[in-house]
């Protein structure tokens, strides 16, 4: 039974990946969107003056970019499913609803992580040149990225499943998603900021932030997993 679920999970994930490789639509739009965000950041910071240390707000800027990019991606991924009638076909097939949920979450997580991994070097190249950065603590950032993205994909997939069936899809998604994701965002920015600052005291802050993010992931994934079954069939 478990192996059958596993097979179904893999098949659904492969479908998402193959479709993405063929059209490259989600990665392209999310990547370019995050690049555009960097331009907006440059304009926003252009009057900041010489005494300004970009490392202080780097974590916040990064997660801001991730949040908006992820909303774009989540919306797209579910709109696709709906427009092509894929979700309805899946619901008719004998597949467990949780499997659908986890396949969708994993797909979104994958694309989100790829875009994040591409955004960080670009951000560092554009804003952090010449700043002293401790590479050893920076190595902790992938941890926050993965933990934070799991929460974003988990909650976001559930909310996007709802919002694609509403009038005013993207606004509804933003209205539901941003307040709900707030605790995770706070923890993630805390941890990322601590990793960028990189002093020994900052390491304690890093793990506090991580605990926050992981706790949020556990609670919200359980709740979303429980609720998805009711939402997807509606």
């Amino acid at each position, binding site marked *: 039974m478990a192996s059958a679920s596993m097979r179904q999970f893999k098949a659904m994930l492969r479908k998402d990946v193959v479709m993405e490789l063929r059209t490259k639509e989600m990665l392209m739009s999310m990547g370019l969107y995050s690049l555009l965000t960097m331009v907006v950041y440059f304009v926003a910071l252009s009057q900041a003056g010489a005494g300004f240390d970009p490392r202080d707000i780097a974590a916040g800027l990064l997660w801001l970019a991730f949040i908006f990019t992820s909303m774009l991606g989540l919306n797209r991924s579910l709109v696709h499913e709906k427009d092509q009638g894929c979700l309805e076909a899946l619901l008719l097939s004998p597949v467990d609803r949780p499997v659908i949920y986890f396949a969708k979450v994993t797909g979104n997580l994958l694309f989100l992580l790829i875009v994040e991994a591409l955004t960080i070097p670009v951000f560092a190249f554009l804003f952090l040149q010449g700043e002293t950065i401790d590479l050893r603590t920076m190595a902790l950032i992938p941890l926050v990225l993965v933990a934070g993205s799991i929460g974003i994909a988990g909650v976001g997939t559930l909310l996007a499943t709802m*919002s694609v069936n*509403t009038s005013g899809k993207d*606004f509804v998604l933003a209205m*539901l998603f941003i*307040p709900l994701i707030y*605790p995770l965002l706070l923890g993630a920015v805390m941890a990322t900021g601590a990793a960028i600052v990189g002093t020994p005291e900052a390491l304690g802050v890093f793990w506090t932030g991580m605990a926050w993010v992981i706790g949020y992931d556990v609670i919200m994934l359980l709740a*979303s997993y429980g*609720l998805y079954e009711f939402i997807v069939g*509606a």
Partner: protein
Amino acid sequence: MKSSVIRALIALVVGGALTLAAFLGAFFWAGVPDFGFVRTAQQTDSVRYQGPFVQDVDEARYLRNFVGYEADITADGTLTEGRITEASEDGVTLETDAGDVTIAAADFDSAQVHGSTYGRPDWGQKIFYFHVPVAEISFIVFGFAAFYSIRFIMTRRREYDTKARVSMEVTLLFVMFTMATGILWTRAAWGVWWMWEPRLTTYFIMTLLVIGYFVLRNAVEDEERRALYAAAFGILAFIDAPISFFITRLIPSNHPVIERGGLEPPMLATFIIAQIGMILLGYAIYQLRMGEVLLRDRIEHAKTLLER
């Protein structure tokens, strides 16, 4: 239908009377706590008098801050007692029983200044008697909304969706009251209109979640789907309520926390009456809105009967 309206009216009258009683109690019975203190040269009144104020001063120039105060000044080994009438960099003039005495700064050794301390009354604390009960009701009714959402998902009965929706409306009303009174209290107590402080932030997020619930409801056409989505979001949104409630006890926060035994009996009694009154008012508003929804249902039913 009728019974729910009658219950609502009873709760409205009793709750209104208790709230009014608490309002009077807050202003005419409960005392005003102190918020910091004021030093004065002498005791003019016993109201809010906290006790004598004594300050040792070791440099003459500091006495400029204490013109009008009684002082014992030691200069060149001799003690002079009197009221400071003038003080500058150069010296200090005292009014003593034996006439005015001027002491040069060069001769000054030390001084002891005497005055009175008065408590500054914190009138803004009056907001507490209603701000806290209103906030509590918002949490309680939010809990009911989440409970009815869970019941709806389990049973799929339309009445639970209606109950969840009406509870959420009452939550929105009380959240707005909490925000309004809270912002004014923030200004009174902290001197700013808003502060990104853990309790305020999480409560603000809760406000957004409740608004988001109605945005979601309005954006879904299909009735059954709307009910399911709203129920799911209501449950997810409720996760923020305990966070907001307990956060002041978990991480350092400016927001005051009521401690056991922290209130004098008249204050505590007023607070409890206000709480009971507000709970009844919240219940009354919920029942009124429920009665209205049921009336609308019956009107729809009568209309379909007539159209046949």
